[in-house]
Every structure is written in structure tokens, then in C-alpha cells.
């Protein structure tokens, strides 16, 4: 099983676009509970389907971009780490439906999901290993996908 991000990233980049999307959806789903926004679930479920049309993805992308932009911590305001976790969950969901020129969708979703987990941990005053723990989970999910 993969145990470092270098290998992980290369492996993700080698996946087909549909596989990317589906794996991204799984990464995003894992941190969905950290967001209170109900729109994310619909987006993730749709992205996970292999028969999703380009138009549908575009529509979801537009909607999710709005969610991401709304939920940024704005410069100078006190950071609410709970809300920030939700912001990153939205970014993970957006990665599922918006292809990123040059970067793998699954990788984008994985990084955003880890930051969501980290933000939640900061909010809870917990330790600093949230990202590493989430990474381990993501390696497991990837291994399961390969297994199928």
C-alpha cells in the first residue's frame, strides 16, 4: 500500500478522468460531516456517478464555486476554524466536479479534505496530526479502489 505522498500523487495523476472523479468524491465524502452545507452532498453523489454529463458537472461547479467563495475566511476577520473546515469541504467537493488544468482532481480533493480535517482539529484544540491521519485514510481508500 502507498505510504508517501510523492507516490500517491503520481498514482492519482495516472488515473482515468472518471476514476479521478469517483475517488475525489470519496475523499470529499469523508469530510462532508464537517460542513453544514446541504448542497455539497448532492454534488458529491452526482460526481461519483460514471454517467454524469459535462453540462451537469458544469452546473454543479458553478454552484459550488459560489459556496467556496462565500465561505472563505475574509482578510482581517477572526478565523472561525469550524467554518473554515466547511470551506475546505466545499473545496474538496468542487474538486470533484471541476477539472483542474495540470493537477489531478483526486489530488486536489485529497488536499482540501485534509485541510478540512486539520481545520476541524484546530477548532477542537486537538493535536496537529489530523492531516496525517486523513492521509492514511485516503491511502486506504485508494488501495480499495485499486483492489476492485
Amino acid at each position, binding site marked *: 500500500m502507498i505510504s*508517501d*505522498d*510523492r507516490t500517491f500523487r503520481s498514482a492519482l495523476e495516472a488515473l482515468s478522468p472518471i476514476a479521478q472523479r469517483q475517488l475525489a468524491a470519496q475523499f470529499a465524502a469523508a469530510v462532508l460531516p464537517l460542513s453544514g452545507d446541504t448542497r455539497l452532498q448532492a454534488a458529491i453523489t452526482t460526481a461519483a456517478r460514471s454517467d454524469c454529463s459535462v453540462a451537469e458537472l458544469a452546473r454543479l461547479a*458553478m454552484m459550488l*464555486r*459560489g459556496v*467556496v*467563495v462565500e465561505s*472563505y*475566511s*475574509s*482578510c*482581517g*476577520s*477572526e*478565523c472561525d*476554524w469550524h467554518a*473554515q473546515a466547511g*470551506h475546505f469541504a466545499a473545496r474538496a467537493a468542487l474538486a470533484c466536479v471541476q477539472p*483542474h*488544468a*495540470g*493537477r489531478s482532481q483526486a489530488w486536489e480533493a485529497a*488536499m482540501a479534505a*485534509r*485541510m478540512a480535517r*486539520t481545520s476541524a*482539529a*484546530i477548532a477542537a*484544540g486537538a493535536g*496537529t*496530526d*489530523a*492531516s*496525517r491521519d486523513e*492521509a492514511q485514510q485516503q491511502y486506504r481508500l485508494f488501495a480499495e479502489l485499486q483492489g476492485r
Partner: protein
Amino acid sequence: MSATTERGLNALRGAINSHVASYFASCVHCGLCAEACLFYTETGDPRYTPIYKVEPLRRLWQQEYTLLGRIGRWLRLTKPVDDAMLEKWQALVYNSCTLCGRCSMVCPVGNDIAYLIRQLREGMSAAGYAPTGMVDATRRTVEVGSPMGVRLPALQAQMRHVEAETGIAIPIDQPDVEYLVLLSSMEVINFPEYLAAIARIMQQAGKRWTLCSTAFEATNAGIQIGQSDLARTIVQRIVDGAEQLRVKTVISPECGHAFTALRWEGPNLIGRPYRFEVLHILELLDQLRRDGLLRTEGMASARMSFHDPCQIARRGGVIEPQRNLMKMVAADFVELPDAGRMNWCCGGGGGNSAIEEAHPLRMQAFNVKKRQLEAAAPETLVTACANCRITLEEGLEHHHLDLPVVGLTELIADHLICDPAPEVSDDQ
């Protein structure tokens, strides 16, 4: 007159010098400054004329520092600057000005109107008329270490995330290295990609660097609201950290106002020159490029434009580096009209993005950016300021434009040549 108003007026008096006086004496009321200001051009509201925004400062100078003005006051021919006037001007001075400095570029008599606004803000904040959000941000920076309340554990959590992602250990509190890298809260919170990019670039270039646990924040809201004593505290913290660690150079992050504060205003705030150099991250990257230490491969095929953050380009003097860097990684780099020195502000600088009530005005002002983008028609917009980035994304979203925005440092790091087995840094 209340004590705070008196304090405000005293702060204004302290802000008056020969530059301020010369500017007011030279102004011929031609109105060209309005034509350079995005808040005026996109609304047509004459109150947003830059020189009008500083009327309280002008009036105080005229009435107290000129003979005719003093005679006029004595004869009760003129009204003094009072609390009501300061209150009335708050929105003009903060909500409709980002200190972008375009006005200063076009004034035919050579007035630096952005400088006048900065001086006026000293009085406004002392009188209690700085926007609440910004006052809180400054207080948090002084008390907690970051305007957004980022404490060391949060930074450490991000460091762990970045270490996992890059496989590179992030140094902190390492003495006698070449570079102290500062961050802005916005990057710690919203864009961890920035720290990851720094780590990878520094590793490839073979440069020794460090973060500082007592001074990781570069943002200086004190400069933005005009509270020099607090701005000083914030800079001093960085200076102490840098000098204790004996670094040669401090790297200012992508944040625009952090650079202006640290590079150009800092020594005046603390009353002495630094014992280290200050570079903007883009200046460092360009230096590495020139020295052959920044090795990239592949080019982004998407058509790209660069949005010059006002405090970095026009007001900071960093204009060429970003172009050199863009040409390294963008096969189709097109300049926005008026790019570089005369670029139009994103609308969120100077603390503006922290003012909720200014949101509608900001979105209206964004129309000028929209026109720039329509003219150049890029597929990706690149910039080098976390606040610009978010303000741009908000504006794009509001105007239903589909255009990704990325940070330049991140973009460069994406194209770094992958070195073989990553070495664990032995600077532990």
C-alpha cells in the same frame, strides 16, 4: 469636544508635514484624480474623488497652519474639523479607498493622494472612526500575533499538513540561516499551498530558511487603519525575531500590505534601519531564477494574465519579477490592459475587504477589473496576494464569470522539475 475627538485632531496635527502642506497648496481641483479611482469610475459618485476624501485633513491644515486660514477661523468665517465631519468621512476614507495609489500616479501637480489618505487615517482611527473589523484585526495582531487569530498550534497543524504533502520538513526557529520566511494569516488559513510551494522551491534551490514561532505573521493592519503605534509593535516583533535568529533576509509573503508595511514603512515606525534585508517572495523567486536555481519544466498551455497587486507593484516597486516568472511557466501570457504600474485595484485592499458594508461598492468597483479581463480574455488569472485572490474570486463569482485564480508562487512550484529521491533536510 470629546477626548477621543481631541486625540483624533492631535493625531492629524502630528500627521501634517511639508509634504502634506505642499500637496494641499498645489491642488488645483482639476478632478483628474477621480478619473483614476475605480470607486469613482464605476459609480460616478463625485464624493469618491480622491482629493475630496482627504478634505478633513486639508481643512485642519488650512485653518491651523496657514495665516489666512487662522484669520478665517478667528473671524468665524470657516467651520472647524469636528466630530461630525470625521464621522461623515469615515466611509469615504475606508470603504471607498484601498490605498491603491492610482490617483498619485496621475495628479498633474504631483500630489501623492494615497499618502494623504494614509495620514488622514491616523486621525480617523485615533478619533475612533476606523472600521470595527479593522480595529479588531489590529488588536488581534498585537495580542495574539495574527489579525485573524491564528496561533502557533494552527500554524503547526498546517506545517504538518505541508510536510506530509511535500515530504519536506518545515524548519522553525532555526538560527543563522539565510532566510526568515513570513506568512500572512490568509495563507495559513486559506492557502496552505503557499507554504508547500515555498518548501519545495527552497529545497530545489538549496537555500536554508526558517519560520519563526514568535513572528510568523507579516500582515500589518495597523498600517491600514492608521495606528502607527500598533503598526510599530507588529513590525518590532518581526524585527526582534529576525535579529534574534540572525537571518540575512526576511521574505515578505504574497500579501500586498505586508510588504509595504515591512519593506517601506517599518524602519520609520521603529526609528532605525533593520539589520537585515527585506525581499518580497517574488523578488526572491526572480533572484533564484537569475541565479539558475529555479528549475522548471513544462508550460501551462492555458492563456494566462497577471493581476498586479497594488502594494507590490505600483506602491512596492516589484513589477518586473512577476513577468519574468510568468514567462517561465506560461506559454500564452497576455498582459491585461493597463497592467503593471497602472493596474486597477481588485477593490479589496487597504482593509476594505474586512468591511462588510463596503461589499456592494466593492462588487460595483469590480466592473473595471471585469473590463480588463474581457479585453485580455485569459483562461486563468494569476496573482500574488492572498487578499487580491479572494477579492477577485468574490468579484468573479458575483459577476458570473468563470475564471480560475491561482497564486504565482504556487504556479511556479507546480512546474518545478521533480528531483530524484527527496532528501530529508538535516537542518533539524
